[in-house]
């Protein structure tokens, strides 16, 4: 063990999401609906990071996410590290992978798309996970991951 002071206190059980680019922190919070959590959530924002300059970290006590929930995060930050914590120990490390289909997460950039004019969920198909191209299930518009806007982001 390195004897380094933790800026965000360790949790006994739960999930740690590390290496979040700082500007993406609140998008992650929105995507996982952390504002609706009943258990303790500790957030470190703009922490020093050797590899990334600054980073953010989120520790969520007593909460384990499904892979499906976590994979949504790949839409906004593909290089996250996720740790499952039990009894202060990391029992599992996970990486996120872009799912084949994104439901109700990404907003279509086409203003004439039905999804922007009707109370309904968006559906995007991942066309190329390397290049990060998605296409709208409804209007066929192709968008790139680096230009996506999230549905949740817009509601807030």
């Amino acid at each position, binding site marked *: 063990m390195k004897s380094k002071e933790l800026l965000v206190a360790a949790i006994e059980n739960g999930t740690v999401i590390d290496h979040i680019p700082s500007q993406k922190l609140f998008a992650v919070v929105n995507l996982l609906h952390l504002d609706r959590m009943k258990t303790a959530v500790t957030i470190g924002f703009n922490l020093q990071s050797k590899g990334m300059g600054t980073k953010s970290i989120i520790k969520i006590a007593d909460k384990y996410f499904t892979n499906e929930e976590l994979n949504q995060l790949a839409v906004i930050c593909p290089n996250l590290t996720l740790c499952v914590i039990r009894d202060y120990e990391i029992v599992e490390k996970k990486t996120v992978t872009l799912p084949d289909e994104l439901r109700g997460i990404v907003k279509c950039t*086409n203003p004439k*798309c*039905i999804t922007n004019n009707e*109370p309904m969920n968006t559906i995007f198909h991942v066309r190329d996970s390397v290049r990060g191209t998605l296409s709208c299930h*409804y209007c066929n518009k192709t968008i790139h991951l680096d230009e996506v806007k999230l549905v949740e982001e817009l509601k807030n």
Partner: protein
Amino acid sequence: MEKRSLVTIADHSREKIEYLIQMAQEFEKHPNRRLLEGKVVATLFFEPSTRTRLSFETAANRLGARVIGFADPKVTSGTKGETLKDTIMMVSNYADLIVMRHYLEGAARYASEVAPVPIVNAGDGANQHPSQTMLDLYSIYKTQGRLDNLDIFLVGDLKYGRTVHSMLTAMYHFNPTFHFIAPEELAMPEMYKVFCREHGIRYVEHTDFNADVISSADILYMTRVQRERFTDLMEYERVKDRYLLKLNMLGKARENMKILHPLPRVNEIEYSIDENPHAYYFEQARNGLYARQALLCDALGITLEDIRNDKTIIE
């Protein structure tokens, strides 16, 4: 009953396209039948399109169906704030099939997901217009005797032209060679060129439009260059007359070459060409009737065999 909506031709295999062409051939032999007697077809036009609506309604009427619907969105509850889903659910209680034209892209896909009855897309914004594609394919097949290995020249507005985009995606089964002839401002969008490259479809791009360029065409597909598509009106003035088809440009054309146009035409095909044996756009529009009869029957679960054994033909 299995739901058999038609949202886009891209959902269809080569075999299915050929099957629908065979159906259309049967309807061309005998367009008047009582095959859909007792059925109600709704035509919901959230955006006016007289020619498409008349063609669909004629197709339904000539097969003995009754037609309900609206031609003008101003008379619907959409203007009162009703959602598309609610309108579709309501009409599904009355009709066996819904033909829908909508100004929003993806509306047909969404309607087909929520409706308990089949939806036939009669155009959704700039997205898809599969019945136009089907009649184009039927016209090509009729005039060339095949769909395979043809040289297809697309002329005019290739940027916004929905019909030319659908043509690309439908023809990819048939090993075509495309020629794109358009002003730079209305050139074929990159995503369709990527589609061609990914599917091994050959294409050549031209900005010139003359007798030599079109001499190797089997199909010359003309579209309208619309003034409102240009951000720079000077540019429009400069190119508008460059993509007009004139009679004296047909001297080097192949004998089998046919000129198609989705209509309405403004001035992009010289009127003197109408009498020329290469002109085919009016027959093409008539083929729309047979193609739409095929699409309506297919959506209602009527098979080619049913049509060949049909005893309800009105001579």
